[in-house]
């Protein structure tokens, strides 16, 4: 995407020497200065808006008991809003100073960014909740629910792009997976059949993408958009003709029961959120680990990345480029299909028209924001899930920030990311480039 010299895995040369080193160092210093000043300015704004914008003597109350779960009561967390907001705004500025001073170490950079983000979010939250109450545990729960399809979609996107096929059709895979899971689940009465159908449906769309992209060399971005349109049409049509006319028979699959893991689920706050969930979420945990290890520590992963970075070289050493791409894109489609199935048989229990409402595109954004790495994409998906959960949680509090602005966050952040303002991003070299052999 952006034309930079930095490969996704090797962030910066370890020990650059000579003139090149000076250039790299100067660029890093400049970037540290700009980001640091940015942090400080945002911190000043937070101090003015959240810190001094909050009445003194008012508490912000955060509910810490996870709703609708079998768990021990945890007392509410009550914070003096003004004092905490001011302290957190100051921390934002401290993070900015640290970013400027500690520009040499990658760990320090990451810590300063994390400090800034956390401090800013807390400052914002106590300001928004001051004098009212918000269920923080509920927001965490919503974060996970919103993030599950995003994480699975992002993993699918990472596998596809790492193998050299851009997967804009994640949204179509979600929608078809959700539809197939609901329909099959209803007809067979088995949620497992529904889950399998969701995977098959996602894999089918992945296969369609692969055939047109690999065999017919169609431009992958446009292709993805057209496939999404096709799935919107098919599911919308069948929904109106079949599901809507007989919802009992065709759109009533039910929802997977939660499985509580004793011990782990007893951890306060986090426990019930993470370990009292349904099978699809556990499947997601497993897939995160599998995809990460698979991509970076197995022969399959090495081959996938070779095909995505330098297909000619991969071919030379005997890797079947197009076969690898077919296999991986179809597999990725199945993973995205699970994410789609979660939307119906994992949460709400019924299919509705266009129910993804662009979640596939957010998953794509998570791929880019996570710099084409599984764990990065997962972190980005969680961040995006958190903003959407916050938008839901803050809506009843009537804050002066419209919920639409919170919902916009993932998109704005992604634009900054691809513009290189949040750090350099670079796609796998052969993404969106079909391979033809003479």
């Amino acid at each position: 995407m952006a034309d930079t010299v930095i490969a996704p895995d090797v962030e910066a040369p370890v020990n650059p020497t000579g003139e090149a080193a000076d250039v790299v160092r100067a660029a890093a210093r400049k970037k540290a200065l700009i980001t640091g000043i940015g942090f400080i300015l945002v911190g000043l704004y937070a101090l003015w808006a959240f810190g001094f914008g909050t009445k003194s003597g008012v508490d912000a109350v955060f509910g810490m008991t996870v709703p609708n779960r079998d768990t021990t009561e945890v007392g509410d967390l009550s914070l003096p809003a003004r004092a905490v907001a001011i302290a957190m705004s100051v921390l934002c500025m401290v993070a900015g100073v640290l970013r400027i001073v500690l520009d040499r170490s990658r760990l320090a950079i990451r810590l300063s960014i994390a400090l800034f983000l956390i401090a800013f979010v807390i400052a914002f939250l106590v300001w928004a909740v001051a004098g009212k109450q918000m269920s923080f545990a509920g927001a965490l729960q919503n974060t996970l629910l919103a993030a599950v399809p995003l994480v699975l979609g992002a993993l699918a996107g990472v596998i596809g792009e790492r193998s050299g096929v851009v997967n804009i059709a994640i949204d179509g895979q979600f929608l078809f997976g959700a539809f197939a899971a609901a329909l099959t689940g209803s007809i067979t009465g088995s949620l497992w059949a529904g889950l399998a159908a969701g995977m098959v449906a996602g894999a089918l769309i992945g296969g369609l993408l692969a055939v047109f992209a690999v065999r017919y060399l169609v431009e992958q971005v446009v292709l993805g958009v057209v496939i999404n349109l096709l799935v919107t049409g098919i599911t919308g049509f069948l929904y109106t003709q079949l599901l809507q006319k007989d919802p009992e028979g065709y759109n009533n699959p039910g929802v997977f029961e939660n499985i509580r893991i004793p011990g782990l689920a007893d951890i306060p706050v986090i426990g019930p959120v993470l370990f009292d969930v349904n099978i699809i979420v556990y499947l997601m945990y497993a897939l995160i680990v599998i995809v990460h290890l698979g991509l970076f520590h197995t022969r399959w992963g090495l081959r996938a990345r070779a095909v995505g970075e330098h297909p000619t070289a991969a071919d030379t050493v005997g890797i079947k480029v197009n076969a690898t791409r077919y296999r991986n894109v179809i597999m990725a489609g199945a993973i995205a299909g699970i994410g789609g199935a979660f939307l119906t048989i994992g949460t709400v229990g019924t299919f509705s028209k266009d129910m993804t409402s662009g979640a596939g595109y957010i998953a794509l954004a998570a791929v880019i924001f996570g710099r084409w790495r599984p764990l990065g994409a997962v972190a980005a998906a969680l961040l995006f899930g958190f903003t959407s959960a916050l938008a839901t949680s803050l809506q009843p509090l009537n804050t002066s920030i419209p919920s639409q602005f919170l919902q916009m966050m993932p998109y704005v952040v992604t634009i900054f990311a691809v513009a290189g303002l949040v750090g350099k991003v670079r796609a796998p070299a052969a993404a969106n480039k079909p391979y033809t052999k003479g």
Partner: protein
Amino acid sequence: MTEDNKSTPGEPSKAKPAPTKTTEPAGASASTPAKPSLGRAMLDAIITGNSAVVTFLAIVLALVVGGVLMILADQDVLDEYKYFFAAPGEALSSSWTLVSDAYTAMFKGSIVNPDSFSEGSIEDIFRPISETITQATPLIFGGLAVSIAFRTGLFNIGAQGQIIAGAVFASWIGFVVDLPPVIHLVFVILAGVIGGGLYAGIAGFLKARYGAHEVIVTIMLNHIAVLMLGWLLTTDTFRRGGQAQPIGKDAHENAVLPNLFGDNLRIHFGIILALLAAGIYWWLLNRSTLGFELRAVGSNPDAARTAGMSVARAQILAMVIAGAMAGLAGVSQVMSSTNPAHTLTPSIDAGIGFDAITVALLGRTKPLGTVLAALLFGALRAGGSVMQASANVSVDIVIVIQAVIVLFVAAPPLVRSIFRLRGARKGAEGGPLAAKETVGVQS
């Protein structure tokens, strides 16, 4: 991409390859030096499957796919298939009735309804065509918006956001001031152009200045525009008071695009603007210096840069012009007969932004092709709503047909192999859908 387009003889619009174009694709075998007779040329075109034939066959295939989907979604007909081996005729004939009724209704709703000759007024006879053109109007603008960016080597997936931006600006000028006739409309149109142009300009600027991929940026800008519109419709500036739904304020009378043939036919002044825009697009690309630069940057940015052209300038301008065109679609959505109250609504874009991409692809990013593709999809939309009302088949089938047409057009070898035509060659053959670069050893 431009060069490739030139070597593809015959636009989808033309029934036979233009004799002036000498370069034939590798698949076409019958390029005799002597000018072939019309009949011979048509036969050759069908046998080798040139792009016009492929387009036609793609439409046929898409209608077949649509028909199969209709049968699959009809419980009564499906039940008859359970007795298929006992009474195959019954299942087949009711399938045929279902599909043919649907497509007949679609034809009656989009081209002409034979009944209207005997019992209807003049307006009844022309109503289907009027509806088709009305539906096609915003699609032409949108298709041009996507096309001009394509020609410059940019994928403008952001027509949706640009339409919304244009619609918001146009609507605002429409209700906030009260100007004399004509002048008010001119200001509304300008507002739409500026709104769409500025919004697309963001993506163009980020691409030119920071190398931000325009596909990602425009997709994100689409979502931002939708949310922004949702928010604007909660503000006092835009929201009409005293109503539960978020609906914008009514535009003044003078701000509206007038109907061309009275109140009974919805065809409006927008189609004149759309054809004008297509004309400007043709002139811009083929006759102006700027257009030459845009195409040069689209074909080979490095060569264009070496030749002293500013790639950044071309990319920004292309996006701004594209946004301006999409903004006009926004004007048409707010200020035309399709929106009787002339107000903003949360779904003002009506899916045109994504349909526009299919229009541009089917029209092979050429002005005439885009207009014809928009008319075809306009006809599908107009006929689709009649079909939904009279044949009880959901209008969503239209989206399926549209997407399938474009998929087949994208892969001519697939269509050729289905119909066993000669010249089935691998690859997308240089259409606008062909991948720009491929890696590996080229044959």
